[in-house]
């Protein structure tokens, strides 16, 4: 009898294991063909010679990597990192108070406010970025407004520079910061604010000691969601940055489509992957230590 039960339990767990396996099959297939395989190809291409009209020659070389020592690329890399970092911080500074505001509204208001955050997604990204040209250009909305108020004598140079790119990036990625922040803040127990104040903490201390640590997850998640795609951006700098504000994404795009240098494009992609991996690894290391500490 006991054995029968055991066998039964055993088949039950086996069945469950089988079910679980079935559940991950689609994702595994997808990831293999569209992530692992391409990644492997990028790695492979990066150590091959370039083909004349794109593609590769099957000849091993490390010369593509040597090209990285050219300071031109360092400048682009530095600008990419700097713009992405600045975008992340700006999104955080704008997004956090907004997410806090939304999360502390009565429940019936929250969804409406959140909808307002998401509405821009209904319009095509390209259209929204082009709209910024109309706003920022010399005879654009801002310049016309300022000069009609006689605040400026000649139009400001707002377009085709780092400023325009940053504005575009912050605008484009703000929702990606707000949504994860809102998700953590919504679960935040606002009674904790009362408790902290009751125990003698003023507003600043309450924020630093209670709110910040308890919403750190949202901050990190939001920052990663903004930083990672922002580093690799090429549409926004292409449209708003003009020729002067190249980012890594533009460079990669250039190598594949313009210069037809697939191996060097692959090298640049790998550099970007490594850069993006660093903050993620740091995040997991910190989260891990937190887990161990508890």
């Amino acid at each position, binding site marked *: 009898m006991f054995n029968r039960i055991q066998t039964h339990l055993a088949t039950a767990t086996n069945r469950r294991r089988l079910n679980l396996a079935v559940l991950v099959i689609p994702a595994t297939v997808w990831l293999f063909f569209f992530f692992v395989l391409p990644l492997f190809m990028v790695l492979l291409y990066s150590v091959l010679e370039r083909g004349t009209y794109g593609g590769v020659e099957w000849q091993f070389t490390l010369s593509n990597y040597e090209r990285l020592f050219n300071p031109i690329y360092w400048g682009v890399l530095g600008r990419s990192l700097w713009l992405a970092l600045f975008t992340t911080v700006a999104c955080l500074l704008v997004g956090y108070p907004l997410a806090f505001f939304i999360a502390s509204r009565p429940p019936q208001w929250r969804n409406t406010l959140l909808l307002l955050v998401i509405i821009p997604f209904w319009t095509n990204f390209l259209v929204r970025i082009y709209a910024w040209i109309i706003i920022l250009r010399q005879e654009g909305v801002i310049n016309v407004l300022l000069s009609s108020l006689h605040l400026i004598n000649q139009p400001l140079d707002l377009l085709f520079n780092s400023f325009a790119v940053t504005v575009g990036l912050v605008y484009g990625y703000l929702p990606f910061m707000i949504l994860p922040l809102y998700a953590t803040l919504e679960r935040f127990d606002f009674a904790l604010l*009362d408790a902290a104040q009751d125990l003698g*903490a003023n507003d600043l201390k309450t924020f630093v*000691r209670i709110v910040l*640590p*308890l919403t750190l997850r949202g901050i990190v998640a939001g920052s990663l969601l903004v930083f990672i795609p922002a580093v690799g951006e090429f549409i926004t700098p292409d449209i708003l940055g003009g020729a002067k504000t190249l980012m890594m994404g533009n460079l990669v795009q250039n190598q594949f489509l313009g210069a037809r240098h697939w191996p060097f494009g692959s090298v640049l992609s790998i550099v970007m992957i490594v850069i993006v991996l660093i903050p993620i690894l740091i995040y997991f290391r910190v989260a891990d230590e937190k887990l161990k500490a508890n």
Partner: protein
Amino acid sequence: MKLAIELVDVGKTFQGQNQRDFRAIDQLNLQIRDGEFFSLLGPSGCGKTTILRMIAGFESPTVGEVFIHGEAMGDRPPFHRPVNTVFQNYALFPHLTVAQNVAFGLEMEGVPQTHIRSRVGDALALVKLNGLENRHPRQLSGGQQQRVALARALVKQPEVLLFDEPLGALDLKLRKAMQLELKAMQQQVGITFVYVTHDQEEALTMSDRIAVLSEGKVLQVGTPTEIYEEPSCRFVADFIGESNFLIGQVIEQANGGLVVLVDGELTLSVPYEPELPVGKVVTLVIRPEKVTIHPQTHSDPLALQGTIRDVVYLGTDTRFVVQLTSKSTLIIRRQNLHPGKLDTFTVGEAVKIRVAPNSMRVLPEGSLGPEAASGVLHLP
């Protein structure tokens, strides 16, 4: 008598939706003495939490003033008031350990680290939580979390400790144990406790004095005995314990007392309350345990005649429902002290009941209702 807290003409109006204002607290006056265990008791929504939050500084009164130890609080923020709160759902900081939670308030005060350690240890010992210092709140049972919340407030050595239904989330047995423990602790540390509850039994068990609230107003303030034995109005009598209400009319004043005609058919004499004039409609409050029930053979000139309508055995006691007049029934509780030897009664049986005259409370309120008016004296 030194006052710990005084509320003078305090009112609180909330701006509701659609521009409709809601007056949660109305013209409230309360005096809480230094060192006493004071309970705010009332049904849900009567404004208990609002009062507590005004004392703590989370809400400011629309009108009136809150004094703590004689000092007007005005708009002083919570972190500058000498009171601490134990919140209904504890509001423990989930990312901090038990010890860090308790230490938080001291760190905010700027107490040196070495003192913090010893004071946190003392506070945790007081609530019997030693050994759990390094746990996180989610790793504690409800009762343990409750103790952390208590230690976190106690460690600040406030002059007044505020409790908002702190035992609401605990099961009955634990709640009873914690009631006694809290009471003992209050006597040990000697600080003023202001305790919000909607559980009348809890308030009676723990309090030195109780304020009974309804719809933002104080109906009665007094010791548990006063509140139970001498309720000031029908609401209090109904809310605290179980009560029978008989509506009647004064028909005679005699020997410093009254004779009351109940439902136009039964006269009861009340040996006190001579001020009530003849013709006045009154409510008689009779507690179920203060009525005795006897077999028909019982010979007592003051006994009343009744018929058993229902008998319910409740373990500690038995509950009888007795038809007293054509319109009124009386609930009677009898303790099951010697079950084998007690008289047994069956439904439908005619019995005699005895209401101790001095256990009846006469309230000068109530209306006879249109259908009752016929059999009653109409006096000028």
